[in-house]
């Protein structure tokens, strides 16, 4: 009888990326701790596009944390109807469609024009505290788990921000979110 080993997608991705989630040593810098938090909080799962590798989908670390690829565009979202399947994602795992419309994961690299280059630490923290883009704008869209991350301490969020300032800047203009279709007018 042949034995089959099944790897779940996150495990496969982690193996493919060769990522190390070793905890930071005592006295580690905020940047080091931030890098650790980013890895174990799975930020890469959605903010680093997947590419197809020999073992299946794997994170394209050349575009680490740069969000939904601009080159991918904005394909039309599938219709989900009223059944149990209510949302879906692209093969890059960077765009998601559901009742809320279409969401594209943000470019978290320090590119000044398309990433977080102009964001301050305060802006970064307020985004999670308020659940609003840049702390003041539109609501952060699903499936970004902003509610759970809002429970991080200020120090943890500051460490994540510090780490994100150190990663390579990637110029990638992520499309803006798309609203759901207007509800149909009631029949007269």
């Amino acid at each position, binding site marked *: 009888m042949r034995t089959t080993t099944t790897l779940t997608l996150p495990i496969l991705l982690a193996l493919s990326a060769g990522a190390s989630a070793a905890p930071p040593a005592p006295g580690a810098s905020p940047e080091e701790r931030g890098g650790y938090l980013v890895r174990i909080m799975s930020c890469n799962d959605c903010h680093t596009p997947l590419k197809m590798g020999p073992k299946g989908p794997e994170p394209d670390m050349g575009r680490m944390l740069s969000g939904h690829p601009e080159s991918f565009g904005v394909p039309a979202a599938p219709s989900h109807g009223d059944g149990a399947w209510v*949302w879906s994602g692209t093969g890059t795992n960077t765009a998601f469609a559901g009742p809320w*419309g279409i969401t594209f994961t943000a470019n978290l690299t320090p590119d000044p024009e398309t990433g977080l280059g102009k964001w301050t630490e*305060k802006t970064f923290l307020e985004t999670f505290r*308020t659940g609003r883009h840049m702390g003041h*704008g539109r609501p952060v869209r699903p*499936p970004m788990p902003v509610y759970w991350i809002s429970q991080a301490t200020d120090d943890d969020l500051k460490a994540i921000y510090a780490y994100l300032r150190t990663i390579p800047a990637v110029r990638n203009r992520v499309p803006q979110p798309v*609203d759901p279709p207007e509800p149909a007018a009631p029949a007269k």
Partner: protein
Amino acid sequence: MPTPLRPAALLLGLLALGAAGAGSAPPEPPPTLAETGLYADPATLRLAPSVLFYQPQYPLWTDGAAKARWIFLPPGSAIDVSDPDAWEFPVGTKLWKEFAFGGRRVETRFLWRATANDWVFATYVWNDAGTAAILAPVDGVAGAAEIAPGLRHDLPGRLDCRACHESARVEVLGFSALQLSDDRDPLAPHAETLRPGAVTLAALEERGLLSPARPEWVARPPRIPAATPRERAVLGYLSGNCGACHNADNPAGTTGLLLRQLVGSREGSVPPARATTVGVEGGWLIPGASGHGSLRVAPGDPDGSALVYRMASRRPASQMPPLGTKVPDREALELVRGWVAEELTPRR
């Protein structure tokens, strides 16, 4: 599925923000409106003689709510207006704004500079009889009053208050040199006739409530240097409704979209709400359009103007302002559309 922001998260966030600013929990607002000091006699709702009634000339649109506003300044104090665009209010300053829909009081918002480091934000929800109001929950009240068929007004949570009131250098909105200018804009959307006793810049100056004195604001009241009367009203509306976030002191300012009108800027300079919108491509694309970003204001083409689109939208990813309103401001849209279509010349 993702979980929406919950009350516990809002409370955590509020505490965190407070801790970040002052090193200790901020003071709590009183449990009832009556205890905030607005009324001399809460039973009859007779106002305290120490509060001043005021009417900004470019009022914020809140789905047609009728509003009344008051300010209290501690006796013997004055507002530091050294920076004409960032007034420094004395500790103890309180402001109230009452919202009514269909003739019924719904909420009264309260802003209080409790300490040098703490501004307290709260809102009070009125009972059905309109006789008293109690402190609303920290995360607000959903659906407190009907504003249109099928739409109800939400009382903001305290983080919602901060989203706008902590977006500029000064927490107080609507009580500024431009908003209180005696040279009032007759075309301002939803402009209110100035009621007897309402304080203006001249009244503040006369009472010695501005420090240093600003006699020039009485001799030449602040006025937007617009090309036409209609443009003046448009730029004023954008300043009053959008400038709290879209200013150079706020993260939204990093987009380059600046809608707050400053009175300290050089005379004759192009108003920022015109300079950063007309013919300027933004980072936001009108759905269905091509390119990276639509023109914020496309001369001659209101339908091709992102600013107009977003003002008219109440879809979550598009609407502007992003909170505090569920119904587009038709009067303002008509004004802005007319300005774009008839006063701005398309590029040849």
